[in-house]
Every structure is written in C-alpha cells, then in structure tokens.
C-alpha cells in the first residue's frame, strides 16, 4: 500500500486553478521528484501533504489515514512529515541548537538535555556540530540549509518534503546539501522533492513527475522521462532546459 496516496487533489488560489485533480502515490522509502515550470503547482502540491495549504477538493492519506483526520491528533502529522523550505526559514533569534530543539521541547515536552543530545547527534551526522551555538545569520546558505534539514529530522519523520532546497544557494554550495539528501535516501526515508536541479533529480529519484498547469502530465523513472519523454509538454520543457544549458 502506498505510504502517501493523493486522489483528485484540487486547489484554487482565488479564481486561479493551481492544482487540477492530481493523483499521486508514493510508496514507503520511495523518492519522488516533482519537476515543472514555475507556477505549475509543485510547491502547492508539496505543502498540501503536510497541510500547510488546505486543498479545496480531493484527499491525501498517509499510511491509509487522511491527513486531516483526528487520528493524527494536533501534531501527529507534523511528527511524521518533515518539510524543508527554499529560504531555510530558520528562526534568526535562536541558535542552531535551539532551532533544532524548540519544537521537541515545546510540542512533545522533551527535556532540554535529551533534546540537546539528540540535536547534537543529528548535527554531527550533517557535519554541523561545530556550529551548535552559532546563529543562522553567521552561517553560509548551504550550512543554513543543512541546519534546516537537521531541524526537520528532529522528529524522526517517515516522510521528508523538500521544497526547492537548493534554489537559493550559490552553485558551489549546492553539493553539500545534495550529499545529505542522498544520505537520507540510503537511510530509507520517503521523500517528495520539488527541484530545479535536473541532474540531481535524475540521480536521486526513483520516479520523476512532470507537472504542467496543475496536472501531472507524465511520470516515469528518471532514465525514461529524461531521455524519452512522451508528453509534448514534457518534451518542450526539457528542450528549453537543454537549450539553456541546464540539462
């Protein structure tokens, strides 16, 4: 059974149709990349999964349970689904360590010592333990994004949503973030990734979905989708990327 099952997901922003009856299944431990032009609905789809955005129609289930269900309790969904944003969204007034421990302490009531210990563990996994007492603005973009991923991992989620996590980074900093995502994949995390890094999508994804005008018009293994796209919209999108030298 699919870990995440999305059926008929539809979302309007005002009168604009952003998601149009999207169906998508993601199996446990699978890595799915969502690609497509800006405004095609990728980020909206991602944010519906952890209910940062409330869809207008359709359903999303996580492990067979609807994400809006009372079965998750107030914070159960957030414990199982982590998200990382393009602009990191770290809390600028808190140290790296406190960024990681705030939610576990306040939401789960984890004692500070336990939370700190767990945070340092995760930070050292990402090579960031040296920066535990630093503030976000003292770090490079790549380092901030690594902290943001560490923060999302504090709840030990089953599913990680990544929303263009490398889009705001200088090119030379992209690699360090992508390495971590690779590492998380080998740990068996289920991931849904919105990305503009086609090379990375090709490399890490089990399946790539191409969105166009709020619909998934094509989904396939990366090898097939990138070398032999079937839908005209996918072909046009990839042709534009090749022409601009990004593929």
């Amino acid at each position: 059974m699919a870990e995440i099952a999305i059926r008929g997901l539809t979302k309007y922003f005002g009168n604009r149709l952003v998601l149009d009856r999207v169906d998508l299944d993601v199996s446990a431990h699978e890595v799915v990349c969502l690609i497509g032009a800006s405004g095609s609905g990728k980020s909206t789809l991602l944010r519906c999964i952890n209910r940062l955005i409330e869809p207008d129609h359709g359903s999303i289930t996580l492990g067979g349970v609807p994400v809006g269900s009372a079965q998750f309790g107030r914070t159960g969904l957030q414990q199982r689904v982590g998200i990382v944003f393009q602009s990191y969204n770290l809390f600028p007034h808190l140290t790296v360590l406190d960024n990681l421990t705030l939610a576990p302490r306040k939401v789960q009531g984890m004692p500070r010592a336990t939370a700190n210990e767990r945070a340092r563990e995760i930070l050292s996994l990402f090579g960031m333990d040296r920066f535990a007492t630093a503030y976000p603005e003292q770090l490079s973009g790549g380092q901030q994004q690594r902290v943001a991923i560490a923060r999302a991992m504090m709840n030990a989620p089953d599913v990680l949503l990544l929303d263009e996590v490398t889009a705001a980074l200088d090119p030379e900093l992209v690699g360090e973030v992508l390495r971590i995502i690779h590492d998380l994949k080998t740990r068996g995390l289920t991931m849904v990734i919105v990305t503009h890094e086609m090379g990375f999508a090709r490399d890490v994804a089990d399946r790539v979905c191409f969105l166009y005008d709020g619909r998934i018009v094509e989904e396939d293994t990366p090898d097939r989708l990138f070398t032999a796209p079937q839908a005209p919209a996918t072909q046009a999108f990839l042709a534009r990327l090749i022409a601009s030298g990004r593929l």
Partner: protein
Amino acid sequence: MTATDPQPGANARTGSCGVRPAPDGPPPPPRKRAFDWRAALAPGLISSASIIVVFGALYWLITSAEQWPRIKAQFFNIDHMIAAAPRVAQGFLTNLQVWLIALACIGVWALVLAVVRSLRGPVFAPFRLMVVVYIDVFRGLPALLLVILFGFGIPALSIPGLPNSGLFWGGVAMVLSYSAYVAEIYRSGIDAVHEGQRAAAKSLGLSEWQTLIYAILPQALRNVLPALMNIVVALQKDVALLSVIGVRDAVREAQIYTATTFNYSSLIVAALLFLLATIPMARLADWVNQRDRARRLQMAE
C-alpha cells in the same frame, strides 16, 4: 598576522594608488594617514573664529537689547532658580515615577492588544474588532482630553472600591492613550516577520500560540525596538500633562512657585530638568536605531 604581511598564495595585484606590489603577494592596504596638524589647522581656526564671531554677536545683540534685563530677571534669575530648585526637583521625581510605571504598563498592555489583533482564527473576530475600535478611539483623542476626563471625572464619581487619586487616573489615561500607539507599533513588527517563519513553526507542530510566543514575538520586538525608543522619549515629556489635573509634578511645582513670586525662573529649572533626562534618552534612541540599521545591513548582505 599583521595587515601588511603578504598573504601566501594570493595573487599579486597591481596597486591602484601607487603602492608597489610585493613580489609574491597582494599590495599592502593603504596606510592610515596620521593626523596632519598643518592641514587641520586652517579649517579648525576658521570654524572656531566663525563660532566666536557669530555667537559673540548674538550674545551682544541679546544682552544689549533694551528689554534684556527684564527678561533676565523674569526667566533667568539665579536666586529664584536656587529657591525653586528643591521643590521642582521633588516634583520631577514624581514625573520619573509616573514615567517608569506607565512605561511598564504600556509595554505589557499594548502587547496584549497587538497579540489579540494578530490572532487569526475566526473565533477571535469579536476581540479583534474590540482592539480595532480601542485603537481608533484612543489614538484619535488628544491625550490632554483623556487626562482631564479621567483625572477629574472618575474621582468625582467617588465609586467605592476604586482609587480616588488624580495621579492614578491621570496615569491610567496616559497608559490608555499611549498603548494605542504602541500596539500599532508592535503590530507592524509582527506583520514584518516573514510568512515563512509561521510556515516553519507550523510544520514543526507548534500551535498558533506557541508560534507567536517562541517564533514571531521575539523577532517582532527586535524589529520595533527603535520605534519604541522614540515613544519612551515622548512619554517622558508628556507625563507633564498630569500637571493640569493638579498632580504636583515638576511643572506644577514650578507653577506654584511662579504664582507666589511672579517670577518664571522656576519653569526654566523644570525645563532644564526635562532636558537633562530627555537628551540622554534621545541619544540612546539614536544609538539603538543605528545599531539596528547596522544589523539589517548585515542581514541584507
């Protein structure tokens, strides 16, 4: 390593201001010029002379005016100043007390108002409306009117169980009036916190309340600190409004002295005391402002 050491491995660039590049490193930074007395002497002399001439002329003009002795006797009489100083200073202590207590009350009450106004759930609609009306009313009324209304009006009711002092109710009026402004300042600070911060907090499972307390408010307060400092300075002066309802603050005490002696030097003493307090506060506000701007510049990099 001192600044003039050649950086190993760095590319030798050709200096732009005639400094010879080191053979295997970048050219040294431009030397800090020592203070050049000769170069500074002429402008220094000119500005000093100009100051002396202009202020000297002003002094001569004022003191040689026909009415000057009368003005001096009326406003700047040293004997009257010394005589009035103790009671005016005593009154000024009242000003400072009211200022500090009102500051604390305004800070807390305005925060409550701002937080209620920024709550997003539809259930909070009536409370949001109450705050909007409150701010419209108290920001729209002159503080003086409120002071008179509360300071005279409520004690006149002599409701049992409520304090009867004009000082208390005048202070309440100041708090009500100022908290409307400060609430709006807080709210602008809350609104200025990036939406992504809320998204991050929500995605981590924090409730709306926890998001506000732990994520939004600390950033909002830091955003509005410079604006709040200006309010602090303004309140320091406006406490004198309480003198109209008979509170014996510095202004009132000075007036009492004037009423018996027909000399206004006591008011100048009060004025000097206010300046003594407000000028350092204004400098502090400038400093906070400057530091804040530096922080923002750094963040924008």
